[in-house]
Every structure is written in structure tokens, then in C-alpha cells.
């Protein structure tokens, strides 16, 4: 299989990882882009839902506006994410340069498949297939002139198209663009650790007030990216533990009980079922979420690009005999297959 991919890549004459790396560099520059994303449910390829966004990205801030319908705006300023009623959210630390790309090279097979046309521009199509079971494949349509990925597709394990993002228009900005964020608020609350720096286990324990539980198991190909400090909406302290295989991510949030509003009632009543029906349209676009209790005082919440059962397994591995993990609930049924 790998040999066949190598032969195909050699015949085409382009190194797929060079193209991917170039597209990543092109994505980090200041830009003003309009992007359309279409989502499909697995097994229901005829029911696609589309959304359009305008993304304004500069060195110091990020601003996202939904173009279909009204919605809250969001921006980033001096390392703080603003939006959703003005509640500041700490900016997560960036991973070391090139770390995730190296991981992706280790966990995915890449091949330049063919050329395609997006909005009248010819582009190179790079297909990324996961080497480990349970991963999602990707397909990038990269413009050879600018290196920008004009189209990004994500596939299910069975090869069904789940998500397609197409750039409808893009304009590179001067890094000193005048598009300043409105109403920039002050820095983070005093006492909050610098959000741009990952925490050591000792710092995380100090921030959280108790020892951060460690996962003794992670899915194939995934490595831990570190610990970040976060603040609950009510003001309590929490941490995020992250994992990645280079392209896919999942997170586990650790916080004291009562720090976050409940995800859903233990026994959903009729009204909540109706509410879930109202929310069902967007549910399939969300990553799976699993909530668990670690002993009587700690809550764990896992979410990300892996299946619910794998999230369950990660959470269960964080328990000990004295502090067992009890899975409380999951946000939605999981349509993905598990290995």
C-alpha cells in the first residue's frame, strides 16, 4: 500500500508533505476570507447543510462573522478571545513549531492524487489517509501558485464525505491592517496564569487545587500536547488536557463539580427532549462529548475528533481504585464505528 502511494507520488512529481506544509504557512498569514462549509451526516450524503463565514485574521486578532443569519461575533485581542457576551476566554498555547506536522507525517499516508479545479483555478489534490484505525481521512485541494488550500474535505472511516470547506474569496491583508477589534477589554483577571504558556503538572495542581488526573491510555498515534489553565464561566478553575495525532484532536477538561453548568439532566424530560429535537440539526456537526465524574468532587469532560467509545476509554483510564471514573452522560448517539 505504502509502496503504491510512493510510486503515485513519484509519478506525479510533487512531494505531498511539502504541499501540505506550504498550505499551512499560507493559512497563517493575515487574510480576509469568505469560506463555505457543508456538513453531511454519515450515511446520509444527500442531506448536506451549508454555512458561510467571513474570517478576518491578523497577527494580533482573529474575527469571525457568520454570513448566514445573525450570530454573535468573536475576536481575539492581545491573547484574549472576546465574544459571546464579552466573557474573555484565554487563548490556548500554540504547539511547538512543526510538532504537529511531524506527528501527521508519522500517522498519515499522503499522496498527490490528481489535479482538480476549484472556482476555475487548477489545484493539486493531496489525500491524507490515517495509518491507525479510527482516524478520519482528509483531502486538500491546494492552489500551486499561492499554496492556499482552496478546498478541505474530511472523510469518515468508511470513506464518506463528512465535511467540505471551500474558500469563496480570499484577500491577503497588510499585517498592519486598520481593522481593529471593537471594544477591546483589559487583560485576563488577576491571578490567572499566562494562557500562552503550557502548565507543568505542579503548576496545574496549584491552579486547580488538586492533583491533575493522568490518562494511562490514549488511542493509537495520539500524543499528549500539554495542560492549559482555564476559568469556568462562574469563576472556578479548570484545566484542559490535549491530545493530537497531527491532524485530529481531542481534549479532556478537568474541573471541580459545579464549576460548569450541567450538560443535560440525568433523566431528560419531555421538554428537554423537545429542546434536543430543536438542537438536532446542529448536533451532527459537533464532535462527540462525554461527561464523567472522578470521585465525588471532580468532573471530567472529553470531546474531539475520535469516537465516543474511545473517549470513554480515555476517561476510564484516568481513574484509580480509590477514585474511580463514572461515565455520566454523552451528548449524542455516536454514528462512527469503533475498532
Amino acid at each position, binding site marked *: 500500500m505504502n509502496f503504491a502511494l510512493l510510486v503515485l507520488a513519484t509519478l506525479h512529481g510533487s512531494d505531498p508533505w511539502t504541499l*501540505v506544509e506550504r498550505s*499551512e504557512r499560507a*493559512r*497563517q498569514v493575515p487574510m480576509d*476570507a469568505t*469560506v463555505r*462549509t457543508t456538513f453531511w451526516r454519515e450515511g446520509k450524503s444527500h442531506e448536506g447543510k451549508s*454555512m458561510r*463565514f467571513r*474570517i478576518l485574521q491578523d497577527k494580533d486578532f*482573529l474575527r*469571525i462573522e*457568520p454570513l448566514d443569519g445573525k*450570530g*454573535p461575533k468573536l475576536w481575539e485581542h492581545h491573547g484574549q*478571545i472576546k*465574544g*459571546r457576551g464579552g466573557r474573555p*476566554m484565554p*487563548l*490556548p498555547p*500554540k*504547539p511547538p513549531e512543526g510538532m*504537529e*506536522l511531524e506527528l*501527521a507525517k508519522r500517522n498519515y499516508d499522503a499522496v498527490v492524487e490528481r489535479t482538480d479545479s476549484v472556482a476555475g483555478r487548477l489545484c493539486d489534490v493531496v489525500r491524507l489517509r490515517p495509518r491507525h484505525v479510527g482516524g478520519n481521512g*482528509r483531502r486538500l485541494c491546494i492552489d500551486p501558485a499561492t499554496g492556499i488550500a482552496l478546498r*478541505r474535505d*474530511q472523510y469518515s472511516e468508511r470513506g464518506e464525505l463528512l465535511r467540505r*470547506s471551500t474558500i469563496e474569496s480570499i484577500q491577503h491583508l497588510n499585517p498592519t491592517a486598520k481593522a481593529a477589534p471593537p471594544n477591546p477589554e483589559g487583560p485576563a483577571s488577576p491571578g490567572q496564569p499566562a494562557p500562552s504558556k503550557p502548565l507543568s503538572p505542579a503548576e496545574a495542581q496549584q491552579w486547580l487545587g488538586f492533583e491533575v488526573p493522568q490518562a494511562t491510555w490514549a488511542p493509537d498515534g495520539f500524543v499528549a500536547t500539554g495542560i*492549559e489553565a*482555564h476559568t469556568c*464561566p462562574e469563576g472556578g478553575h479548570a484545566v*484542559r488536557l*490535549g491530545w*493530537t495525532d*497531527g*491532524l*485530529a*484532536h*481531542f*481534549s479532556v*477538561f478537568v474541573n471541580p463539580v459545579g464549576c*460548569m*453548568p450541567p*450538560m*443535560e439532566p440525568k433523566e431528560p424530560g419531555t*421538554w*428537554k427532549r*423537545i*429542546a434536543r429535537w*430543536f*438542537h438536532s440539526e446542529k448536533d451532527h*456537526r*459537533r464532535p462527540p*462529548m462525554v461527561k464523567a465524574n472522578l470521585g465525588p468532587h471532580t468532573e471530567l*469532560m472529553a*470531546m474531539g*475528533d475520535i469516537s465516543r467509545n474511545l473517549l470513554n476509554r480515555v476517561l476510564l483510564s484516568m481513574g484509580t481504585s480509590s477514585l474511580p471514573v463514572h461515565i455520566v452522560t454523552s*451528548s449524542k448517539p455516536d454514528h462512527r464505528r469503533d475498532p
Partner: protein
Amino acid sequence: MNHDTLRGILAAQPLPSADPVAWEALRAHLEPRLAPTRPSRLRRFRWSLLAGASLLIAISGFWITRTSEVEPSWSQVHALSQWSSPGADPTWVAMEMTSP
């Protein structure tokens, strides 16, 4: 036989061969039942009730969708953490951050 037909029979003169006593008894029996009655309250106020119920459903639906927060904001933190990752889809993050 519908009510109009019955009313027509009762309005007609009794047949010569009919027993006048029996005829009057029949008329006395049927007339109160065939008299135009006032429509019930349910019928009179049906459109108001329908409008009220629709309004109630609309308000409660709006209230349910606004007040039931199924997902916590951790999903936004998770989405945002991928912004600078090679596997991240900017619109995925955008959708998560801007969803109501």
C-alpha cells in the same frame, strides 16, 4: 334525514289522513330539538383558542431553545485550541465559536 328536511316536514300542513293528535305530539317532540341553538363556547371562540395555543407553542418553543444550553463552552475552548493546527479547519472553529 337532515334537520332541514325535518323542518320542512314540520312546516308543512298535516296530511288529511294523519292523526292530528299524533301530529301535534310529533311536532312538540321535534321542534325543541330542531330549533336553531346558540353555538357552543368552544365553537364561538375556536379561532381565538387556536391563535392563543399557537402563540403559547411559539413562545414556549422560543423559550426552550434559548434557555436549554446543551453544550458547555468547553466545546468552544476545544475548537479554538485547534486554530493553529495543520488539521484544523478554520470554518469548523468558526462554526463552533459563532453557533447560538
